[in-house]
């Protein structure tokens, strides 16, 4: 069983994971914040992109469940010159990991890896394509705060073109019954995105109608292609600040935040921002994902069924 795309999960499956996550939240309150559930299992973090946050979150989630964690980090560009992705996976696979968490700058990498290993493969971000655990933790965070997503209006604001978070969240939020609008500079809204079922806006004029505003990170490194004339103009048009966000609206952001660009400094610290809750949700949702994928028999090796009562 793998988690490659949020599209693989129906509403029921998403809810099963977020419900489990809610129960794992209790583990973090114990004196010993660790359970033995996945003792003896090995989780391999295969990261071709620097990502302290996501990798740390997966690592901690695995450790909270008593799994062993091995980190393989490589700079994408250096790997391109040397060992191929396939050879790397086959080599690492020789140690028989039970799960491989894959983060790479290339679309479809996790799916490709899943063809070369028996381990459960978890997509922790593949290029600009998908980031399913981020979508799950965002659904979880919203459910915790609002109970359900049905009927919510959610605006995803910013650099949609370069955002895997946007793609996974458009799908996940809609599947949970919300209505999604994407908004950003026309140069950063990909042609054809409305085929995913969302509305498209190029200004924040109607953002007051949103229940939730999900701001995306405006990546400085993308500015080399000059998709917008300047960050100053971007902020003037699209920054979520106290003036644009009313008190009843909820603010989310996948982090890390560029204060003063996509979000004003003040709004980040306001009570309506769920940004810290999202980080906490990341841990329990990833615990739930690992638990769901890794409990159950590893291979077909038949073992005697122990009785419990």
């Amino acid at each position, binding site marked *: 069983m793998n988690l490659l795309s949020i599209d693989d999960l129906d509403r029921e499956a998403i809810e099963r994971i977020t419900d489990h996550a809610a*129960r794992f939240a*209790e583990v973090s309150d*114990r004196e*010993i914040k660790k*359970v033995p559930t996945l003792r003896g299992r090995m989780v391999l973090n295969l990261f071709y992109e620097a990502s302290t946050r996501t990798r740390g979150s997966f690592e901690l989630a695995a450790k909270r469940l008593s799994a062993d964690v091995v980190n393989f980090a490589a700079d994408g560009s250096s790997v391109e010159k040397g060992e191929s992705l396939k050879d790397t996976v086959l080599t690492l696979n020789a140690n028989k990991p039970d799960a491989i968490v894959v983060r790479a700058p290339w679309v479809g990498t996790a799916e490709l890896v899943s063809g070369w290993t028996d381990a459960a493969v978890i997509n922790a971000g593949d290029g600009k394509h998908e980031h399913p655990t981020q979508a799950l933790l965002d659904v979880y965070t919203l459910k915790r705060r609002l109970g359900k997503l049905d009927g919510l209006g959610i605006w995803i604001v910013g650099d949609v073109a370069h955002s895997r978070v946007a793609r996974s969240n458009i799908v996940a939020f809609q599947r949970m019954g919300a209505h999604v609008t994407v908004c950003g500079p026309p140069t950063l809204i990909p042609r054809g995105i409305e085929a995913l079922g969302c509305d498209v806006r190029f200004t924040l004029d109607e953002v007051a109608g949103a229940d939730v505003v999900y701001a995306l990170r405006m990546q400085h490194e993308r500015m080399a292609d000059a998709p917008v004339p300047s960050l100053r103009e971007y902020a003037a048009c699209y920054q979520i600040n106290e003036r644009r966000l009313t008190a009843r609206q909820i603010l989310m952001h996948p982090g890390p935040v560029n204060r003063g660009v996509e979000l004003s400094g003040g709004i980040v610290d306001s009570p309506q921002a769920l940004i810290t809750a999202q980080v906490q949700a990341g841990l329990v949702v990833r615990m739930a994902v690992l638990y769901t994928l890794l409990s*159950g*028999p590893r291979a077909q090796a038949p*073992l005697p069924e*122990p009785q*419990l009562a």
Partner: protein
Amino acid sequence: MDSQHKVVLRERDIHNALLRIAHEIAERNPDRQAPALVGIHRRGSFLAERLQPWLAELVSDDVPLGDLDIALYRDDVATRADAPVVHASHIDFEVTARTIVIVDDVLYTGRTVRAAIDALFDYGRPERVQLAVLVDRGHRELPIRPDYVGKNLPTSKAEHVHVHVHELDGIDEVVIAAAPAVVGA
């Protein structure tokens, strides 16, 4: 109820058995601090809930009540076909240095109790852990022995023991059922 099922304890029997257990717990724990009750999810939790007021009255003190889900501590996570559903545990009191009585409905192989003890220790270091069960049906696979037993019920391994409680099943009873005939094997 067909001939495959035999009711061995009825509502009144269960009531009496639990009341007796409450008395025994009080007698065996004369310490200044009352023991805490921790029921194992799910039916053990309801039994613990019933024991609590009786015990509190007998020891004239507050008796903390908790419940424990052992799904994360099971020793068969690797072999089950799917992930057991996890429920949140609730232990809202200080476990360390207290006597804890684990409450469950049926004691069989002892693996559940083993998991429960492991789970409990992640909340702290209890002074003492005791075990109360409504039914002990034998066939232990681990060196675990109950401190309080409602009824000893000799069974064959092929049989199933079902404890039904009002809160979940609408009736209080303990039933022995023959293993269902294997069809088409």
